[in-house]
């Protein structure tokens, strides 16, 4: 394998690892907190919100936005590390 290919493979591996972590969080806040564990979380109340309901109608969306911006940062850094930035 050439140097260039090795670099590309290493970059791709790190990228996929980030995706795995970020998508786990994506799954946890929406399908986890907002759907599967909603009833359990609803026993906790913050202000007028039941927590499970809050995750389903508010919290998950905030986390989604944050996730994409974290991804943008991570990838920009990764691009720099491997010299793929432009």
């Amino acid at each position: 394998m050439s140097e260039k290919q090795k670099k590309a493979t290493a970059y791709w591996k790190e990228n996929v690892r980030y995706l795995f972590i970020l998508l786990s969080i994506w799954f946890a806040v929406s399908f986890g907190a907002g759907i599967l564990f909603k009833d359990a979380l609803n026993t906790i109340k913050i202000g007028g919100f039941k927590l499970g309901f809050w995750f389903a109608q508010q919290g998950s969306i905030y986390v989604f936005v944050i996730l994409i911006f974290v991804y943008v940062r991570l990838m920009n850094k990764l691009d720099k590390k491997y010299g793929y930035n432009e």
Partner: protein
Amino acid sequence: MSVQVWTYLLVGITFALYIGIAIWSRAGSTKEFYVAGGGVSPLANGMATAADWMSAASFISMAGIIAFAGYDGSVYLMGWTGGYVLLALLLAPYLRKFGKFTVPDFIGDRYYSNTARMVAVFCALIVSFTYVAGQMRGVGVVFSRFLQVDINTGVIIGMIIVLFYAVLGGMKGITYTQVAQYCVLIFAFMVPAIFISFQMTGNPIPQLGMGSTLNDGSGTFLMDRLNGLSTELGFAEYTDGTKSVIDVFAITLALMVGTAGLPHVIVRFFTVKRVKDARKSAGLALLLIAILYTTAPAVSVFAKMNLIDTVSNEKYSLMPVWFKNWEETGLLTFDDKNKDGIIQYVADKDKNELTVDNDIMVLANPEIANLPAWVIALVAAGGLAAALSTAAGLLLVISASVSHDLIKKVFKPNISEKGELWAARGAATVAVVIAGYFGIHPPGFVAAVVALAFGLAAASFFPAIVLGIFYKKMNKEGAIGGMVVGISLMLFYMAKFKLGWLGEIPDKSEWWFGISPEGFGTVAMIVNFIVALVINRFTPEPPEEVQEIVENIRIPSGAGEAVDH
């Protein structure tokens, strides 16, 4: 000034603005027509994507649906935003690097086959047409209620406006009009929400107002009060819902994956300069969408409270003007079953006397809350902006599918640049006319099918694109097989359980795995993945040069601009 005058004024000004932008941003080449020249800034693209995405359904219907569905409405909130995470992480950067004009372009090239391209074109057309008909209908509804014109005239006016800037400006015209439309629609959505939130809870931020105590000095939380009232009237608790967990799960996933697979959304990421910009612009798009999507559930809660407060157990003769106005449109009906002249709004179908269409909750909300005339007019302009921007985006996908993917890539490869541009304009015109026809004569199944467009996108495109990027050895036989089986299965399930084309619609208890047609896209998508992978195992590997393309799209640098071959 009256609501009427304000509405004419605001709608007139916004329409003039859209037309002005269209003239200023005419498309001169196919590249400008398909991808706005490829040099759109991430912020402009984010705004355009947000407007493109937020349709009449998001603006007009969603908050109303949630108001009546309570927790069950969460599927739309999570589904229509969570898809952007998938889009940003799994699709947009790679498709931008790939750098072509359309989604069928990617499928056709990645799977080195015109059959794959044709299947993709077919899927794109089905998805886009079902979706666009709903938008034209939305335009008609807003016109008929606020400008007192006939619903059909409304659709025709909408058609002319869209035709003007989509045909003239292509993607370039659409992009910049969508930027303006985003500003109009978000302003129009937020202003009444802030007013009402302040009125009811004393907190001007709707997202917080929803979780605050009521402004009436009782110290009760708004949500608790609403839960209490709902139970009293015999409904399920607002925060609980009635759908099964598996169905909520399946619908949410289908909407998310469908969002990520919708061609008119994906194509927006071809318009930015670099891969980096595609990622950032997906983030900005979701941020801008989230402003509306986190406000909508608050609007639902306020609207439901206000509605119950205004009508429940009150005398019909004392109803305010808006009640009568909406009765005239047939979207709100009162049937005094026990002849006592008092409105009974309860869960029990035999005793309930009031039916309220989902769509009027957002449109009537400012009137119900007694807001000033200009706010009511603003909502009309916002609803139109939402419907027109989405319609234009969809029309572009339809016209590009025909002129680029079919005519240029399959039937007449030696067509000139100019010829292709005219073909694109012609296809856009035909598409507007067909969409308008369905807007005026909506076949019964349109409304039902719009929600299912996501299932269709999930069942067809998403697996083929994801496998095309993340699995280098994925071959054409597998991808085509997966798409065909996926979309056929979804169409079959729709025909059987939603449209009733295969005999009587079976009872809910016969749903496969307890999953409704809206959520079945999830199942069809999984089947698509399995079929694709199994066929892939028993058929030859893709050629070396295709595997190199895949290696290449995984590296962000050197994207260049979206190019023709």
